[in-house]
């Protein structure tokens, strides 16, 4: 009887759980280290920013996405990146009238798959790393954006929604220093 044949788990699925669980223990450690959940949110955003700065290079190499001519192109690329790295296809929508602000909406959030927020952590933006990743990645392609959560399933919302706002194009950007 071979053990291999009994393993019905999809290995892809399982290795996705690896980073979900790793991220979970990282957040748990941050909560232990900081008294204040706002500090945890800030730290997560900063980590995401650092990741985004490097991840964009991996994304450009893997997906060869080409140049963006407007923010709608950028939104499509962000959608594509979510698919590539998180295995979910978020929808893009809620454009502002000026076309400089949009939402990334996820029906399920793989980062928070095994998570329930305890009462004393209601201020925690668990997946805040994602908004940092978006900001860091865009900055490396000369786009300054702001990104923040406006809905989170962990807090009882129907979906998880990240708002992204275009700030400005960075001209002749000096390489961003590590913080």
């Amino acid at each position, binding site marked *: *009887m071979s053990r291999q044949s009994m393993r019905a788990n999809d290995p*892809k699925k399982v*290795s996705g759980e690896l*980073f979900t669980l790793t*991220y979970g223990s990282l957040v748990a450690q941050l909560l232990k280290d900081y008294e204040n959940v706002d500090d945890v949110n800030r730290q997560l955003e900063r*980590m995401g920013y*650092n*990741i985004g700065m490097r991840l964009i290079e991996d994304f450009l190499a893997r997906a060869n996405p080409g140049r963006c001519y407007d923010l709608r192109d950028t939104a499509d690329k962000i959608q594509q990146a979510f698919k*590539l790295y*998180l295995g979910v296809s978020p929808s893009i929508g809620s454009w502002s009238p000026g076309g400089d602000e949009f939402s990334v909406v996820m029906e399920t959030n793989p980062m928070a798959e095994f998570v329930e927020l305890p009462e004393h952590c209601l201020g925690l933006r668990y997946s805040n790393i994602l908004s940092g990743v978006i900001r860091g990645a865009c900055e490396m392609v000369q786009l300054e954006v702001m990104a923040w959560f406006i809905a989170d399933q962990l807090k009882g919302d129907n979906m998880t929604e990240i708002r992204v706002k275009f700030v400005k194009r960075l001209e002749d950007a000096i390489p961003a220093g590590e913080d």
Partner: protein
Amino acid sequence: MAEETVFDFIHMEAVSYVFQGEKVSEDEAVSKLEHMGFATGYRLVERLTRESGRYKDELDIMKYICKDLWVTVYKKQIDNLRTNHQGVYVLHDNRFRLLTHMANGKQYLQYAPRYLAFTCGLVRGCLANLGVTCVVTAEVTHLPACKFQIQVQRG
């Protein structure tokens, strides 16, 4: 999907997080990483082994760690497993994934242990959930090769 990249980056950020700040004690930082690894491994193995049969002995569990677990987490198998049959197992990985981002050779050898602490905890966590209490340590002499020593605690 490219989730292994995401894991690599989260791991790098975890390492740089525990070492940030001016006066960080190396021991404390490493123990935080080890703890994160333990928590991850303990939960992960429960999900990975959900469908598998009972492992027949300690050696069988170690083989599981070297083959299936390593492939899931590090995309390759352990290159060599040695044991003294008295509860000490040594796992050799000739090209350990989390060290491949660093220059080969000896230049950054002093920083290598930081990138192994999480994995030591991960292995310890997996084994703990499979019913083996142990101490896991790691050693590097030449990047990106390293070895993990598992000392099973009996009694």
